[in-house]
């Protein structure tokens, strides 16, 4: 048993971080080889929260399997659902009404904001500041309320269906969203004051966990993790889906590739998300919120792939259909898995405290890594 080996042959200390540990944010198990406080090797050990979602999807119809995907990356569940709905629509060539597309994108960006807020609080908590966590949750609660009114759920939204969204938006949706944006815009400078500008926080984050542009590409990093190294990989820009080609926003890029770079990218992304929602919220067109589809959906024989940008990076949905009621095979390309694979590369030679800071800026959601 690994747990019984305290010191290995070369005299290094081995500690097991997780599966229950405050900094892994879930049931991730890291076997860390230490020399004093310096990390020599990190061996991530997965499988503690494997629910075989991909296999489950094979026995669910094309309407049903979308709901399971909310449980993968639970912080961007709406975006996961969106990706699956897009794949089914691609296969059936369903034209999604304009109104549904607008609602989907607004919801996507609200989800991204909520996810980044939680990340911000958790990242600050990982480096030892406990107060930001509560401030982040105060703002996130407002988004949850908006979601609750329109989707009926706060975390696993299940709002997307093939052909549009499940229900029309709540009458209060636009007013509340605008009120939230106004409130949150005032709070963002406060976030910077409390955490970004703090000298201790900057010392903890700068020049640690560096990953170069080439390494980021070869490890398959995506999302803010890769963009902090200067890899232009925002799917919303490079392969626009839904109505992302109609809105104005910037792809946030940093070149440092360190933890602070990843932090800054996410902070800027929050501002970009606000910008996107502001453009759309007043212009939601009238019309249907759902296209007319057949009662029973059957994808034609073939392979279908869609990718979207979740809060953590690129999510790919790959469906192989034999023409039946259920998919023959489903594979998800989850952003967290590839980002985690770069952890050893980033954290080698750093202190154990840095490992926690690096994991915080990778923004790992374990159910997304272990489906």
């Amino acid at each position: 048993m690994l747990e019984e080996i305290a010191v290995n042959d070369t005299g290094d200390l081995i500690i097991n971080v997780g599966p229950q540990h405050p900094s892994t944010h879930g049931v991730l198990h890291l076997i860390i080889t230490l020399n004093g406080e310096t990390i020599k090797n990190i061996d991530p050990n997965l499988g503690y929260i494997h629910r075989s979602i991909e296999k489950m999807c094979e026995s669910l119809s094309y309407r049903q399997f979308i709901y399971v995907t909310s449980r993968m990356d639970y912080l961007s569940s709406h975006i996961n659902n969106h990706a699956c709905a897009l794949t089914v629509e691609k296969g059936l060539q369903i034209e999604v009404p304009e109104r549904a597309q607008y609602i989907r994108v607004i919801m996507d960006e609200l989800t991204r904001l909520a996810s980044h807020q939680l990340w911000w609080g958790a990242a600050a908590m990982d480096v030892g500041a406990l107060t930001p966590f509560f401030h982040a949750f105060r703002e996130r609660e407002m988004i949850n309320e908006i979601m609750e009114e329109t989707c009926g759920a706060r975390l696993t939204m299940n709002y997307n269906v093939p052909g549009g969204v499940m229900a029309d938006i709540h009458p209060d949706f636009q007013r509340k969203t605008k009120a939230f944006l106004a409130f949150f815009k005032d709070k963002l400078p406060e976030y910077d004051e409390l955490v970004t500008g703090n000298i201790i926080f900057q010392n903890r984050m700068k020049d640690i966990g560096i990953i170069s542009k080439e390494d980021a590409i070869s490890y398959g990093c995506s999302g803010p993790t890769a963009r902090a190294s200067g890899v232009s990989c925002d799917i919303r820009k490079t392969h626009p889906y839904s109505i992302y080609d109609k809105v104005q926003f910037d792809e946030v890029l940093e070149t440092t590739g360190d933890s602070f770079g990843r932090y800054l990218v996410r902070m800027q992304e929050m501002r970009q998300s606000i910008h996107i929602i502001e453009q759309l919220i007043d212009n939601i067109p009238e019309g249907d919120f759902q296209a007319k589809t057949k009662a029973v959906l059957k994808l034609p024989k073939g392979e279908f792939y869609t990718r979207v940008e979740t809060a953590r990076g690129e999510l790919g949905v790959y469906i192989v259909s034999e023409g039946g009621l259920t998919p023959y095979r489903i594979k998800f390309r989850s952003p967290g898995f590839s980002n985690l694979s770069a952890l050893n590369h980033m954290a080698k030679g750093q202190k154990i405290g840095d490992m926690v800071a690096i994991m915080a800026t990778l923004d790992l959601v374990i159910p997304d890594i272990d489906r």
Partner: protein
Amino acid sequence: MISFEYIADNIDKWLNNTFSPWLALTIEFVIVGVLCIGLFAVLGLVLIMMERKVSAYMQVRLGPNRVGPKGMFQTVADTLKLLVKEGLTPAGSDKFLFNLAPFVVMIAAMLVLAPIAFAKNFQIWDINIGVLYVSAVSSIGVIGILMAGWASNNKYSLLGAMRSGAQIVSYELSAGLSILVVVIFTGDLSISQIIESQQTGWWIFRGHIPMLIAFIIFIIAVTAETNRAPFDLAEAESELTAGFHTEYSGMKFALFFLAEYVNIFIVCAIGATLFLGGWMPLHIGNWEAFNSIMDWIPSSLWFVGKTFFLIFVIMWFRWTFPRLRIDQLLNLEWKYLLPISMFNLLLATLIAIQGWYF
């Protein structure tokens, strides 16, 4: 006027008149011991409650508000829970050291209480090397922490204890050097003499630049010595789960917890005594009317007020700052604080010799 000094003197007189001297002394020992333990219990209750309320208001929440009026008995309930909890000794641990460690930490905290002046002429032991005694005894606590980390047979505990050892030994230097600045100005090591010397004004005002620097360094160093955030590396919960007390439960854990809060009280009391005049009221030059009004406020209130102000500052740190990394922590001490305090000591000596203070 009723004061602590008056009460203590009367009890002493009555005991000596009623019993033989050695019996009176024994009874006094017992009374002091019971009072010390009582003070510990009260401090534990008050400081833990204060920490919870301060953190709650900083974190936009209410804090405990269910047990008793405004949740004031929450700590009592928690203590009861810890009392009935099983104090587990893990298999493979060094049982003797494991069970001894919490008491070492606790006793070290208790001993430092001796020379602190709680009110005018109200002191357990006015030892003539007061501050030396304080800085010597307060470092015994680290032995208990190292003991706990080693005896637990847990790798997180060991890492936490080693961090704590490195940290406390380093920061002791800065704390000691900033205490020395006060000693230079006062010319005396005993706590009562240091307070007497602040009759015309607290050292933080009279000693201007070197005293201010010493005060700031002292506050940073004692925050580190008590293992409080941003220097709480010994128990950094996101890295080492709970550091050196990972394996402790029940009352043994409670002793560590209590010792932490009593240590905060003690270092803040020392800080208040050395730099803010202890129980000495705020006196400004020759403003006779103002000074006499200040004298009306009981000396014990002055002491408690100053101490709790410093405690609040240290709590404020904890709920605002992120944690430092171990190498940054040691860099801060050896590369910045120690050279600054040494230079500051020379500056203080120059100023004291030349008499350039108020």
